[in-house]
């Protein structure tokens, strides 16, 4: 079915199918356009219309009522395409330089072959891509991106572009532009193209009008500044394009990183034999998230929040590079909406998960280590399983439906009784105290006592369903005064901040015997001076003769300059050194020698010890 319109052609009324009418209308307009500038346009048009009406009348004579597309095409054939009008009507300008293409036109009513030109009307640099785009019928943006990518392949894209720029001619004339675009060269198209060009020109004139005015009226100085302005404009335009490229590259790099991250997981958390699925679907979500759904919710949010700004950066770069002026409001709005949605997803996931960390509960128990025998015990870690995992940086992993964590700390303190004892404090977090308490109770930790050996596992384990919720175990080994512990090499995995006589670091305590004393706490029984850090060597090693002394007085002449009770360690002697007028006073024996100096004849050091008194006269 076809819509019909009524048309009055030269006083005769016709029914014409809508598309046929459209075609006829276009045809007449084209002709009219062509005769626009010659005398008697109206008369010519009237004659032509009259003839068309006559022809239609003839055609309808066979009994048909409606003019169809077919009729119109037949009439146009008889009357001739506008091209033909020009052939006969053409003036000198057409015979002078355009004879060649006029002939091509005659053969090419429907022009399909294209010629390769550079399109400087729609260019980024030399219009090469634009021209190639027309020639191959490809969207020019893809060619541009292609060249851009190729630039990073050792600059081949850049070189190729320069070569093409040099060898492909620029489309200068209207017919060349039409040839480039593959449009048939006829009156209508030439008219359109010229109109476009005129508009472009007009725009240019409008925008440079001020400059032209200045050129006319101002001096050479002014012209110089205008030139300088143009150079700067070009420079900034170029700079903008460079920044645009940088933006686009950064965005692509970010997207690639994201994809790598999604498909491989964060590197420092990969687990033995873990593949992608295992890591993302099982480990992370089951270790940390309240549920798998929460995990995927958060991950989706994260991807959105990461991808949208990257795309934004890419788009911004593209805008800079190709001078796309305005931004698309719909795109902006959707991008911002998506960002907000992504953030909401993340916050839902995060708050749900984090709320399960909000409360802490501790459970403490004390165990008598009745099976330990002797005054000297050896502390070891149950190291075999853990050592297998050491070497990787991971401290959390899943095995046999249990989560293992490297969250065990062992301290050594004075026993409250005369037995070895073990105090264990388990703690965990949860949505509520009750849940945290349940989790704390679920913590499993291995230790064993056997003869002189006490072994503690460096790993605690919790059931899968408990997730990772800050579970930790603090173990305090209580040692009766007078007993000794030897810290073996493997104990290094478990001990944490053990207090001792000189606050020695844990790692330095390894490989030594430590005796629990009433006053000094843990005291090393086999350490030599070099085991201590300088200045931290206990006085019993530096001044064996002072062992057991408690009071010290130093006198110069009869003036008592210091009296110290309960002499302890080297620190006290250092105080003495400071108060003394002597410059360096390091060892008591040397002290004696220095005091032989003639100037200090009456110096005397008195050391009192539990009532008895040792005087050193110098």
């Amino acid at each position, binding site marked *: 079915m076809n819509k019909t319109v009524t048309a009055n052609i030269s006083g005769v009324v016709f029914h014409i199918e809508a598309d046929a009418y459209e075609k006829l209308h276009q045809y007449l307009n084209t002709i009219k356009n062509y005769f626009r500038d010659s005398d008697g346009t109206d008369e*010519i048009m009237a004659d032509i219309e*009259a003839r068309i009406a*006559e022809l239609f*009348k*003839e055609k309808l004579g066979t009994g048909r009522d409606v003019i169809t597309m077919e009729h119109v095409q037949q009439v146009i*054939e008889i009357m001739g395409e506008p091209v033909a*009008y020009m*052939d006969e009507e053409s003036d000198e300008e057409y015979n002078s330089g355009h004879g060649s293409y006029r*002939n091509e036109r005659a053969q090419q009513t429907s022009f399909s072959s294209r010629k390769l030109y550079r399109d400087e009307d729609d260019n980024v640099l030399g219009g090469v891509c634009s021209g190639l785009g027309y020639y191959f019928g490809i969207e020019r943006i893809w060619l541009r991106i292609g060249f851009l990518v190729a630039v990073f392949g050792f600059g081949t894209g850049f070189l190729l572009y320069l070569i093409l720029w040099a060898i492909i001619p620029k489309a200068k004339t209207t017919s060349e532009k039409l040839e480039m675009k593959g449009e048939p060269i006829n009156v209508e198209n030439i008219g359109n193209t010229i109109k476009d060009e005129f508009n472009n020109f007009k725009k240019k004139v409008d925008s440079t009008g001020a400059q032209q005015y200045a050129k006319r009226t101002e001096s050479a100085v002014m012209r110089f500044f205008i030139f300088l302005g143009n150079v700067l404009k070009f420079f900034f335009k170029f700079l903008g394009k460079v920044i645009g490229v940088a933006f686009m590259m950064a965005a692509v790099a970010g997207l690639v990183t994201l994809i790598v991250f999604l498909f491989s997981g964060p590197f420092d958390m990969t687990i033995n034999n873990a593949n992608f699925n295992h890591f993302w679907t099982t480990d992370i979500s089951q270790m940390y998230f309240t549920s798998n759904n929460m995990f995927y919710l958060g991950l989706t949010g994260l991807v959105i929040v990461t991808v949208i700004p990257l795309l934004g950066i890419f788009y911004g770069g593209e805008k800079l590079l190709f001078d796309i002026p305005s931004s698309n409001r719909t795109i902006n709005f959707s991008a911002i909406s998506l960002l907000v949605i992504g953030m909401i997803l993340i916050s839902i996931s995060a708050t749900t998960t984090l709320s399960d960390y909000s409360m802490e509960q501790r459970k403490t128990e004390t165990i008598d280590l009745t099976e330990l025998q002797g005054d000297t015990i050896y502390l070891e870690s149950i190291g075999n399983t853990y050592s297998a995992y050491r070497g990787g940086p991971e401290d959390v992993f899943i095995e046999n439906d249990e989560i293992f964590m490297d969250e065990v700390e062992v301290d050594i303190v004075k026993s409250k009784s005369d037995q070895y004892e073990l105090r264990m404090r388990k703690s965990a977090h949860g949505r509520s105290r009750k849940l945290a308490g349940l989790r704390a109770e679920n913590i499993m930790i291995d230790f064993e006592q056997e003869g002189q050996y006490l072994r503690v596992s460096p790993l605690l384990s919790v059931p899968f369903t408990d997730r990772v919720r800050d579970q930790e175990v603090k173990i305090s080994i209580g040692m009766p005064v007078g007993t000794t512990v030897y810290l073996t090499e493997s104990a290094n995995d478990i001990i944490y901040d053990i207090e001792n006589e000189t606050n020695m670091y844990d790692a330095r305590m390894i490989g030594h015997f430590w005796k629990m004393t009433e006053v000094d706490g843990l005291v090393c029984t086999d350490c030599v001076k070099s085991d201590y850090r300088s200045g931290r060597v206990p006085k019993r090693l530096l001044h064996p003769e002072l062992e057991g002394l408690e009071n010290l007085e130093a006198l110069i002449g009869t003036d008592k300059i210091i009296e110290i009770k309960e002499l302890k360690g080297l620190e006290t002697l250092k105080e003495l050194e400071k108060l003394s007028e002597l410059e360096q006073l390091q060892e008591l024996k040397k002290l004696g020698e220095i005091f032989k100096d003639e100037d200090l004849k009456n110096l005397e050091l008195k050391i009192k010890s539990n009532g008895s008194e040792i005087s050193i006269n110098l």
Partner: protein
Amino acid sequence: MKIENTKAQMRKGVLEYCILSILESDEAYPSEIIDKLKEGKLIVVEGTLYPLLTRLKNAGLLKYRWEESKSGPPRKYYSLTEVGIEFLKELEITWNELMNAVNLTRKKNTK
């Protein structure tokens, strides 16, 4: 130099002369003129004739009168004016001269 180009120029030159010649004996309306021109393969499509007729009329060489038609709109019947008759005579002389010149030149060259 394309052959089509040259042909078109030659055709263009004689077209006006031919139209005037057709109208010399009797008046005619465009369709009749077209038919005669088509016989001589001087024009291919009708559209080209109308601008030409208008131009000749505006130059005062042709005049026309309206006549009702039973098929379609009224027709324009063209005929020569006094100026047109004079113009045609001039053209005939020029044409004959040209023919002679061309023939002479061709004969010389073929000898």
